[in-house]
């Protein structure tokens, strides 16, 4: 993992995510909503996306639909990071379609722990 796009509207989380990734030697950029995320994708293709679920005005599936409409972004792995994973309600098929590798609960997995888990998932 060399460059991660963080899509998160809560600055308290995005700041910690960026710091934890940096500690692990990974560069990252923060987008606070879907529009920013698409703009960032236009500039540089990330190796993975950390995506909050309930963003405003568009939620994660809406953003992922938009991202997936860009042909070269289809296979970017996505990690959903939400306080409300019980509500996420994505089917296995949807996860496959959106390249969602894992869903993490913010109240149980702190940003530093998330970065560790992502690294372990990334290790073959």
């Amino acid at each position: 993992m060399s460059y991660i796009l963080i899509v998160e509207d809560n600055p308290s989380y995005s700041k910690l995510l960026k710091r934890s990734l940096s500690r692990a030697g990974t560069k990252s950029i923060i987008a606070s909503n879907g529009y920013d995320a698409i703009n960032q994708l236009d500039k540089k293709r990330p190796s993975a996306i950390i995506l909050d679920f309930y963003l405003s005005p568009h939620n994660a599936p809406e953003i992922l639909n938009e991202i997936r409409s860009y042909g070269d972004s289809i296979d970017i792995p996505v990690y959903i990071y939400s306080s409300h994973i019980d509500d996420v309600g994505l089917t296995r098929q949807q996860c496959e379609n959106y390249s969602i590798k894992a869903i993490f609960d913010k109240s149980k997995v702190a940003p530093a722990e998330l970065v560790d888990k992502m690294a372990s998932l990334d290790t073959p």
Partner: protein
Amino acid sequence: MRRVNATSDMAADSFLHAIVHDLKAPLGVIRSYSLELEQALSEGVVEQSDIQAITSASEESIKLVQDLLAVFKLQKSQTELPLAPLSIDRELRIVKDELSGVSKNYQREIKIRGLKRGSTAVMANQWYLRRSLSNLLQNAIKYSHGKKPIVLKSIQTKGFTELQVIDNGPELSNVDLLSLQGSLSGFKTKRSAGSSNLGLYLTGRMVEAMNIEVLYQPQDKGNVFMLRIPNIQQLSLF
């Protein structure tokens, strides 16, 4: 009869769900930053901003619980809410100052407009007025887009002071507006994006208890929330 019960149970479930949602977010921040501090302490380098993040998220949780308790009390109580003359200028400045940490965190500026020399006195309950404005402003801070400041405006109309919170957030749907009007139907069983509507609901109940009219107007890119508070008289308090 059974269908009515089922509907009200669903609304109550959605309301509880919104409370859990709005409490889980700051509690998750507290946990994350506490773990960060543990590591920082072992390394001997603690960032002041990390401590502030914990303080701010703790205060957010406590205020939410206080607001909920206050609204539950209001709904149970038959007694009138005590109102007192308040300087509107002073109240606006205090609410803005109280939110300085949140607005800095989200990099959103709050601008106060329309204040005139000599304060206008209105009849309201200080704590409820501050909490109502604070809830509207917090929603504005969290869900606005772009760099435009959030405006807290005071306008004098005949016998009234109209307080406006002007944000740059997405337009409220009719379902969202139900929360402001006090209906639990405004809480969706399955949210799609953005706010849980709890702040709107709490604001609506608080202003209602003060007999303050609340109005909503979507605008080109954003929203205007208006609180119409009866003036006592024009006087200079300072």
